[in-house]
């Protein structure tokens, strides 16, 4: 391996891929250091044990973990290592990162997300701010993602539609399930606007990637056709083919080494055998997924940054964000349906692709006098994994174990008498002083590096918004004739939908990165995962991560070519 690169990218997921792709295509030498292994397309099967029940794509918690701080009723916080709690905060640690395992529900942010403070004013307990860039700055890159990553959909003009530069999506919508029509009917009756959701999934072959094969098992699973727009399938394979990009798996970076001028000179990493190496580059790009990116910077103190790299104002790790919201579901009992509808409902494979964004901004005096930031409701089938579902049947309603024939009858009833439609709610997680990353003072990973300690406090307002939106989801299920309708907001942070920690902004005292996502006080350090987001918006993040990483890649490329 060469030991001096133009650019060293740390982390190969949605934040790292666009940088490697852009710079390698521009002829710069790029090294991608990825802590996990390199699974190839032919290693991905619909194997529930591998995907979801063993730590195959993520580290074992005894080797690498997090420490999570949960709030007690009296307002104090208890820190618990995840090796004790079993709460796994890893999402996918291999070449391509968690983008291999995403479900590919893709939403752009809306213009209002870029200036929430100006739009809605301050909120006590929330650190919301305006972004240093506007929707118009990101729009060309949202558009680029549609073409390069591959986004399938059909644009229809509606009151909340984001402005777009291309008339329509480059790929037609993915195949849809009959239940999508039922949702449309129910929404029309309720005077809601059912939105057809774009997906980062190819609906026809493109660039040596096959079209989706509609197996019904998508989220949490690696894709065997490369239809899913993971960083690995959509970007890294091409980047390697330029001959300018080297991807090095099993390379866990524990420290960025900086010099007396405050510039990063080398990345230090451990290989598979535990040997330490250093690699030099002109520019370093961190994209380890939000929590781990903050952790790496905090672990990288140097002569000019005793508190950690880019942390001279104590901002690294602060204002961490998750996707706030919640979820709900309703069951459709086969016995209540015509034979035709039963048949339709039992089909497995095509997608639901329906969401509501009517309350992206809530104008409802019954909720608040003034307009308030809301979010979206996304409909999807219950995840098809059978083992987890079966395992929960062993508990009866009194919390006692059930077994023998009663267990068998209950399994039959759970699996064969109905199908469950879920919804998930997405709204803003207000940046707040109780949601942040620090280094744990005691717990270390297998290489002796302090692990991230994460406090995950949520602002109470976010739960109110989540509940408001969940009621809309429940209303749709009711209108559709579902039974056992349930759901509401949740304060539990989804570990896969995480942003912030290195917010960008114009003031170095209150932000870590400038508008270009370059560290204010480190000239050759960029962060290109979701860490930059000062507010999260009310949709899953990945389209925005990809778009922003393409934007920053162009900035770096322009800088390098002078």
């Amino acid at each position, binding site marked *: 391996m060469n030991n001096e690169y133009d650019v060293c990218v740390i982390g190969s997921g949605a934040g790292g891929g666009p940088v490697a792709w852009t710079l390698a295509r521009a002829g710069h030498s790029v090294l991608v250091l990825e802590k996990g292994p390199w699974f190839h397309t032919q290693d991905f099967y619909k194997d529930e044990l591998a995907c979801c029940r063993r730590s195959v794509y993520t580290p074992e918690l005894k080797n690498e973990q997090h420490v999570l701080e949960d709030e007690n009723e009296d307002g104090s916080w208890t820190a618990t290592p995840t090796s004790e709690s079993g709460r796994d905060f890893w999402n996918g640690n291999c070449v391509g990162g968690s983008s291999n395992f995403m479900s590919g529900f893709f939403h752009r942010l809306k213009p209002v997300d870029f200036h929430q403070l100006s739009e809605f004013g301050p909120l006590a307990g929330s650190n919301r701010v305006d972004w240093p860039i506007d929707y118009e700055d990101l729009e060309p890159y949202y558009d680029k993602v549609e073409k390069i990553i591959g986004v399938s959909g059909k644009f229809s003009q509606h009151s909340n539609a984001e402005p777009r530069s291309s008339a329509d999506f480059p790929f037609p919508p993915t195949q849809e399930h009959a239940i999508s029509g039922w949702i449309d009917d129910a929404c029309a009756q309720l005077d809601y606007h059912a939105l057809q959701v774009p997906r980062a999934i190819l609906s026809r072959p493109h660039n040596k990637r096959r079209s989706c094969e509609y197996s019904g098992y998508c989220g949490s699973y690696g894709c065997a056709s490369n239809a899913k727009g993971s960083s690995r399938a959509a970007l890294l394979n091409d980047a390697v083919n330029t001959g300018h990009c080297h991807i090095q798996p099993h390379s866990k970076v524990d420290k960025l080494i900086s010099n007396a001028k405050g510039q990063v000179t080398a990345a230090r990493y451990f290989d598979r055998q535990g040997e330490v190496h250093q690699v030099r580059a002109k520019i370093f790009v961190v994209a380890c997924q939000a929590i781990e990116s903050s952790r790496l910077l905090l672990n990288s103190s140097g002569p000019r940054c005793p508190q950690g790299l880019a942390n001279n104002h104590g901002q690294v790790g602060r204002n961490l964000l998750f996707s706030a919201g919640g979820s709900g579901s309703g069951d459709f009992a086969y016995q209540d349906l015509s034979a035709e509808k039963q048949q339709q409902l039992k089909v497995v494979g095509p997608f639901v692709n329906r969401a509501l964004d009517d309350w992206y901004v809530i104008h409802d005096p019954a909720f608040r006098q003034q307009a308030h930031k809301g979010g979206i409701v996304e409909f999807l089938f219950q995840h098809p994994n059978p083992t987890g579902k079966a395992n929960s049947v062993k508990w009866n309603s009194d919390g006692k174990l059930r077994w023998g024939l009663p267990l*068998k009858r209950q399994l039959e009833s759970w*699996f064969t008498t109905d199908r469950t439609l879920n919804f998930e709610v997405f709204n803003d997680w207000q940046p707040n002083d109780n949601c942040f990353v620090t280094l744990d003072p005691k717990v270390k990973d297998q290489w002796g590096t302090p692990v991230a300690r994460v406090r995950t406090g949520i602002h109470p307002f976010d739960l109110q918004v989540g509940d408001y939106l969940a009621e809309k989801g429940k209303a749709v299920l009711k209108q559709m004739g579902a039974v056992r309708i349930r759901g509401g907001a949740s304060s539990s942070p989804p570990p896969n939908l995480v942003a912030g920690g290195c917010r960008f902004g114009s003031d170095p005292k209150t932000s870590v990165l400038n508008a270009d996502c370059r560290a204010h006080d480190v000239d050759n350090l960029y962060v290109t995962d979701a860490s930059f987001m000062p507010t999260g918006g009310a949709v899953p993040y990945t389209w925005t991560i990809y778009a922003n990483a393409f934007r920053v890649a162009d900035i770096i490329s322009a800088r390098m070519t002078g």
Partner: protein
Amino acid sequence: MIRRNSVPESQNEMSDSQSGLQQWHSQLLSRRRFLLGLAGGSVAALFPAVCLPLSSKPATIDEWAILGQVQQHLLPDEADSPGAVKIHALDYLRFVVQDPWVDADERQFIVQGSHWLEDLAHSREQTSFLLLDQARREQLLQQIADSSAGENWLSTLLLYLMEALLTDPAYGGNPAGTGWQWLQHTPGYPRPPADKIYPKLNV
């Protein structure tokens, strides 16, 4: 699924609700702490709740025969629906107990539980669990389920029974998809060939 829970699955359907999740978190925590605490402990120390006068239990027991019989009690075979025997649950459990990907404490716990059950059978019924009739087996298992250690053990066996029932036949359970057929479950494709099951992925 877009939002991922940080816990693998929920105890009940309402897990998404706030209280359900918190309840589940605390249960999971106590289970993990419990497992961590037992590493290296003796069988008697493991199950203090039923620590009984020393019985006439023989020094060596057939752990796997006991585990097999417990599995059959927990998931009995019937004429028209598969149970532990038909889904090859015992073979599957052997795979689990040898699998380094499964928590070592949990694997030890599974096997140790058979000793405890046998202890209890000798103390309460003066004979081996293997020689008891269905009704007395049921009684003993109900007694175990009342202690948290026993409930954990049975719950663990049930988890791996569900895996044997519903995971890919490549792992040794669910032969020819018999569990999937019973519960009218459509598996995903492509399915893992024998040389691509997770212990064999070479990356």
